[in-house]
């Protein structure tokens, strides 16, 4: 026993303490509780993992399971409250607690002047709690607890500025879209219960492995597709990605922690976790790969023209998540998880850097009103450049290592996917550097007085910058290899070169358009006006959803459910009953003389009747 339960309990305690007494206590107390709880959790993760031999002798391949108590027992179904740690969750644990710790530290600087300080940190701790539950879960139901919990926290944190309409709407949107995915996920859980009689990861995967690959394909496909629906909701894949860009309404640390580094990768984690099931369902794998690739392309194209710095990075997140799903769909689960980790580093860094920039220019998020910040906030600039290099796949950075593995796996799956992926990678490099150049080069176009952020913000930036650059050398794919089914892997050098070249090309194009010849960008957008407009308005997806889903539901509810069913039938029944009751009551109320003594007489009459009845039937003796 490594007392795994302590890992999530620390943040939970932090949540409870801050939530209960945070309003009264000072900021220092809130900081200490929030950061301390996550720090303790992180240290406990390190202790538990090193006790398992992760950093030394090597971790055992089977999971370490801790069983606490039986949660649900119904018939043959037995769901325990169990936690488990294997290599996969070990990686996730480190990412979640490590990045989470950095972002907590960062947030103390970023949120220093915001209202609802204690509320923010108690939510953040609650999120950590649920995320750790999700990662530590030893069965699908516990995972579902965490799954729902992080969704709740995401909603709470997106809507953190609940007095602003758009933030509240964005929160609701995220919540509702996630519900769709959760519905798929819960259906998948039911199917698993029906087919395997258990929700335990160990038992389900044993049973799946024992089956021949081609057997039960239909049910496996169904389960996996439903899982993918859930994953698409949580990890923002087509068609459920629409909530993630709006989620940027929340505070920037939230975007970094929840909507870039951890929660949105929960879908990837879950599918990687279920890899034993997915290998039985090639159709589902193909769907995952294609949807992932489509998401990557679509989000990247939208990202090309956005002007809000956080929107750009949000679409970039969607796009990178698409890459991860591409990897999963191609069977390269380890590569997908590796990208989760590296992406957590550089995307968290990008968001935190963006936060630092926004902080510096006084809350402005529009790239067109920045510029020339390079010399004013140098630390932010250089750390963001590190992240941008990593995401663009420049050699020897973390992004290059993971992205190359994904693209190679995609090539082995289907060469056309590789090519589309390479082009997308180029676009990624282009739009990321576009925003870097727009923000940091040229002359300052805003009105604020930019200033560097405090050490609590730049410190995490620098740590993440180091990780973004050097994270590629972590032996994560090798570490995860035994967890997943084998993929044949014969790296061909030209594949890597092509990918790197596309990235570099993207960077140079961005330099050309936004530093060397700024006029070219305007000219291009004028020339491709229609396309630009289409991209700028995100393919009109939100509008389409409004027209096809939201409006019909609202209208249908209003006209059919409300006016027809509710008023016509339900109210009709209720009111009808009421009228009948009034009529009957009108007759009966003659008995209610209001005279206590008559009532008493009736009571006596009744008792005599009862006693007589009992005496005559002989039930008294």
């Amino acid at each position, binding site marked *: 026993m490594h007392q795994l339960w302590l890992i999530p309990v620390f943040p939970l305690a932090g949540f409870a303490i801050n939530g209960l007494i945070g309003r009264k206590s000072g900021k220092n107390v809130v900081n200490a509780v929030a950061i301390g709880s996550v720090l303790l959790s992180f240290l406990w993760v390190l202790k538990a993992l090193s006790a398992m031999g992760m950093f030394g002798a090597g971790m055992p391949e089977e999971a370490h399971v801790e069983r606490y108590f039986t949660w649900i027992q119904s018939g043959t179904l037995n769901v325990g409250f169990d936690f488990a740690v294997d290599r996969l969750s070990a990686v996730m644990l480190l990412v979640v607690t490590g990045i989470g710790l950095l972002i907590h530290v960062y947030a103390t600087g970023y949120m220093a002047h915001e209202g609802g300080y204690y509320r923010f940190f108690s939510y953040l701790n609650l999120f950590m709690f649920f995320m750790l539950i999700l990662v530590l879960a030893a069965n699908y139901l516990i995972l579902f607890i965490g799954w729902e919990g992080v969704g709740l926290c995401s909603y709470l944190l997106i809507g953190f500025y609940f007095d602003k309409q758009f933030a509240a709407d964005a929160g609701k949107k995220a919540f509702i879209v996630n519900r769709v995915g959760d519905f798929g996920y819960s259906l998948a859980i039911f199917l698993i219960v029906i087919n395997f009689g258990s929700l335990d990861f160990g038992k389900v995967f044993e049973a799946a492995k024992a089956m021949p690959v081609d057997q039960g394909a239909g049910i496996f496909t169904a389960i996996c597709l439903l899982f993918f629906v859930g994953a698409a909701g949580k990890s923002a894949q087509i068609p459920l990605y629409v909530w993630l860009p709006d989620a940027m309404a929340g505070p920037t640390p939230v975007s970094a922690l929840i909507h870039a580094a951890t929660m949105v990768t929960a879908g990837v984690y879950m599918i990687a976790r279920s890899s034993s099931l997915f290998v039985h369902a090639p159709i589902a794998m193909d769907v995952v790969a294609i949807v992932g690739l489509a998401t990557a392309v679509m989000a990247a194209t939208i990202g090309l023209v956005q002007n809000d710095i956080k929107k750009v990075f949000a679409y970039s997140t969607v796009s990178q998540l698409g890459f991860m799903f591409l990897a999963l769909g191609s069977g390269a689960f380890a590569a997908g998880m590796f990208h989760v980790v590296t992406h957590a580093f550089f995307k968290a860094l990008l968001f935190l850097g963006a936060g630092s920039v926004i902080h510096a220019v006084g809350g402005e998020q529009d790239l067109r009103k920045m510029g020339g910040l390079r010399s004013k906030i140098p630390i932010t600039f250089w750390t963001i450049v590190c992240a941008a290099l990593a995401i663009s796949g420049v050699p020897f950075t973390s992004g290059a290592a993971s992205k190359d593995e994904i693209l190679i796996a995609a090539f082995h799956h289907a060469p056309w996917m590789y090519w589309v992926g390479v082009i997308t990678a180029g676009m990624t490099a282009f739009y990321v550097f576009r925003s870097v150049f727009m923000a940091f080069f040229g002359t300052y176009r805003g009105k604020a007085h930019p200033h560097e952020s405090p050490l609590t913000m730049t410190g995490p930036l620098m740590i993440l910058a180091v990780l973004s650059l050097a994270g590629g050398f972590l032996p994560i794919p090798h570490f995860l290899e035994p967890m997943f089914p084998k993929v044949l892997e014969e790296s061909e050098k030209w594949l890597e070169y092509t990918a790197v070249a596309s990235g570099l090309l993207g960077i140079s194009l961005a330099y050309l358009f936004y530093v060397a010849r700024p006029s070219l960008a305007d000219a291009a957008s004028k020339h491709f006006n229609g396309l630009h407009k289409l991209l700028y308005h995100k393919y009109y997806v939100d509008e389409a959803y409004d027209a096809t889903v939201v409006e019909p539901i609202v209208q249908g509810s209003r006209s059919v459910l409300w006016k027809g069913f509710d008023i016509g039938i339900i109210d009709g029944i209720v009111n009808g009953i009421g009228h009948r009751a009034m009529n009957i009551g009108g007759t009966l*109320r003659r008995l*209610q*003389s*209001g*005279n*206590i*003594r008559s009532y*008493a*007489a009736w009571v*006596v009459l009744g008792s005599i009747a009862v006693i007589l009845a009992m005496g005559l039937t002989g039930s008294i003796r």
Partner: protein
Amino acid sequence: MPLLPAAVPLSWYLLLSAVLFSLGVAGFLFRKNIITVFMSIELMLNAVNLSFIAFSYHLKQVDGQIFSFFVMVVAAAEAAVGLGIILTVYKNRSTLEIDEIDSMKN
């Protein structure tokens, strides 16, 4: 030949209890002063207590007495609250006639 038996049957106690209870009911039905009505209720409770204790004797167990003890407690609590209500009623309506207090009718 004694005029009376040396001891009385248990049923006499129960009959006494029944008679007292009926008199309590009668008081409840026929009296119009709300306090007297309340006292009739107490009389009924007392009658029931007598039954409890008679049965306690019959079964040679103390439990019946415990129940009558609880009845007393309830009666005391009831008297405190009930008399408070009566005082309030009197303050608001300045009458104790139970037939006059019938604003709940119809």
